């Protein structure tokens, strides 16, 4: 992305923990963003409230706000789509850490699943058609149940550097585990397969 490009087509805000959402407020102040996806669940943390204020200001300038809800599909153009899987209910009354969005980024036959580690996943996953979760790459917190990892059955499982969760479930399922510690990872999809650069 060239330095002079000051626009992002879309932002998806997942976790609302103060230490993770704070940076997005600065992103909104520096980039034009026509579309934002976020959960209806709200955190009372000052950083999250600052983000809400920034989103409202962006909306006043024409930004479209999509509330993450299971079944919502957003066409990003260029053949890429985002499908929201969670929350599967009105999340406005849910604690922020429970109501975080989980979604799948699809491109051709390939897909990337973004889990946010909601505690509700334990029960939610039992209500799902597991085949819909199948993805090539999973961004995981490591807190998901084994059945979830089995449903997604990714080629790669990506752990945040700050995660202390065990990757034993993925190792057991012979899934390649990668961490973002001290490295930037880029995956390239041609629509048929995914390659880690």
């Amino acid at each position: 992305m060239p330095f002079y490009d000051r626009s992002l087509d879309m932002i998806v805000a997942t976790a609302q923990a103060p230490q993770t959402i704070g940076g997005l407020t600065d992103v909104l102040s520096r980039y034009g963003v026509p579309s934002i996806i976020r959960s209806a669940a709200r955190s009372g943390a000052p950083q999250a409230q600052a983000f809400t204020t920034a989103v409202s200001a962006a909306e006043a300038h024409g930004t479209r706000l999509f509330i993450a809800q299971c079944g919502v599909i957003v066409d990003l153009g260029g053949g890429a789509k985002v499908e929201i899987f969670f929350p599967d209910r009105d999340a406005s009354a849910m604690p922020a850490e429970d109501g975080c969005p989980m979604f799948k980024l699809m491109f051709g036959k390939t897909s990337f699943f973004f889990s946010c580690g909601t505690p509700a996943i334990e029960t939610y996953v039992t209500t799902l058609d597991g085949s819909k979760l199948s993805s090539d790459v999973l961004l995981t917190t490591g807190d998901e149940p084994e059945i979830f990892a089995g449903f997604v059955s990714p080629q790669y499982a990506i752990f945040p550097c700050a995660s202390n969760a065990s990757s034993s479930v993925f190792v057991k399922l012979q899934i390649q585990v990668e961490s973002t510690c001290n490295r930037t990872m880029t995956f390239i999809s041609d629509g048929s397969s995914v390659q880690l650069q």
Partner: protein
Amino acid sequence: MRMSARILGGVLLLLSVVTGLVWYAALSEDHRGILSVTFLDVGQGIAVFVEALQVSGSSSTAGPMIRY
């Protein structure tokens, strides 16, 4: 007069051929897209930058998207 008409006809024919070649080149170009998904360590969380690009190297048509 007749000579001028021949020259004009020749020029038009040449322009038609050039236009055809330009369209052929444009339509036969490989326009398959690729999706680039980059995971960045941003301390407590991960930022993910998504960009849809054309194989030919032209500018992006979808994304980028950032997620924290």
